């Protein structure tokens, strides 16, 4: 329960940061999707079927607040989730190289769906060389930043769960 609440609040915070704060700064306005951090954290840490539903819901929210075609974020997040779920059994979960690779793959998957929607909607001319440069920039940035953020979220989640357990323990001691 406390984990679900933690991820819900964190997702909401990241959506607000991405839509209300980052666009105000030129340096960050062309950054990658921050929700990758949540999708990767959930996919790596949990195997519960509810995680898939949560990832789908996240995609749904992002599709609603974005001007892109509906289904773009849902597709990207669900495929990232499926990829990570399929590959995580082959490697050690603490493997940082795997995390770095998955961060880059996440950006590539989302951008691939984006290019697909542009080409289907407007034709091949809709994708300019400037778009490709931005995609490469996002991938490089994600390679460095996303793994760090995933590790921070992981530590935060452990801390919050520990505090909640201690609090519950104290409450039961008080009742006794």
């Amino acid at each position, binding site marked *: 329960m406390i984990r679900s609440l933690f991820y819900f609040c964190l997702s909401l915070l990241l959506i*607000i940061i991405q*839509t*209300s704060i980052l666009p105000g700064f030129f340096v960050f306005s062309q950054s990658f999707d921050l929700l990758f951090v949540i999708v990767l954290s959930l996919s790596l840490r949990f195997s519960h079927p509810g995680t898939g539903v949560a990832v789908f819901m996240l995609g749904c929210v992002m599709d*609603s607040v*974005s001007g892109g*075609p509906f289904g773009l974020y849902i597709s990207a997040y669900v495929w990232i989730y499926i990829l990570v779920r399929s590959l995580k059994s082959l490697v050690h979960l603490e493997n940082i190289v795997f995390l770095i690779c998955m961060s880059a793959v996440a950006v590539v998957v989302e951008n691939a*769906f*984006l290019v697909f*929607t542009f080409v289907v*909607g407007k034709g091949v001319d809709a994708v300019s060389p400037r778009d490709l440069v931005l995609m490469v920039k996002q991938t490089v940035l994600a390679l460095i930043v996303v793994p760090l953020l995933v590790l921070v979220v992981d530590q935060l989640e452990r801390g919050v769960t520990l505090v909640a357990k201690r609090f519950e323990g104290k409450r039961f001691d008080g009742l006794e």
Partner: protein
Amino acid sequence: MFSRKMVLLIGIVFFILVNFIVLTVSSKDALPKSGVERITISLIAPFQMAFSRSFAAVEGVWGDYFAMVSASKEYPRLKKEAARVVEIANRCRELELENSRLRKFIRFQDLEKEVLVAAKVIAKDPSPWFRTIMIDKGAMDGLTKGLPVLVSEGVVGQVVTVAKRYSRVLLVTDRNSAVDALVQTSRARGIVKGNESEFCSFRYVLRKNKIEPGEMIISSGLDGVFPKGLRVGQVVDVKEDSSQLFQAITVKTCVDFDKLEEVLVSLKDNGSESDGL
């Protein structure tokens, strides 16, 4: 009958097919609008609004101090300018009355009284690939899909999604946006297309029309969305290729979209036509 692997394989193929069909239909804007989008906007937008207002309030305190300092220095100059502006405004008022009389005289039928609704920008698009903003006015304030959104500097965009209290606006700089426009001086017609930056392209302008950098591009009113005569941008570059039918014109938008905080949504009040005449 089928092995587990077979079922899994069929499931994956089915999922991929459904996924790409939905995306294809959605990319062509042919997917019917579901309530999910409106409900999600209604749930997320209050948090975005609370956050952006708190952020603006903190920023405002800091900004107000510096504004006060510079305002006291600028005051004498502005006072002189204000007197001049009042004189110009009086002259404009006279011209407006004269225009109104003349329009009546020639039985001009296309008078539409414009009702403007002021709205605050509460969020921007989470993706750098799309240019949309969220505003704090929705269906309850009379907004509908397709209404033009403006500021005093010029055209901002048009309303594309309307929730109960919030709406999403597609900016003119988005690649999906197109505004039917004219060159103010030569009246050469074309379409202003978004380029994901403050520089838009002014397309389909024939080579026979001579256009110079610095000329103003205004809305033609022929797209049925934007009223005629609104400023869209200024020509910054003109490229003529003898092998091409049209010129390649770059236009810098009049509106600074990075600093957009408040906008006006134009509600066309057709019922008041008779009042104007």
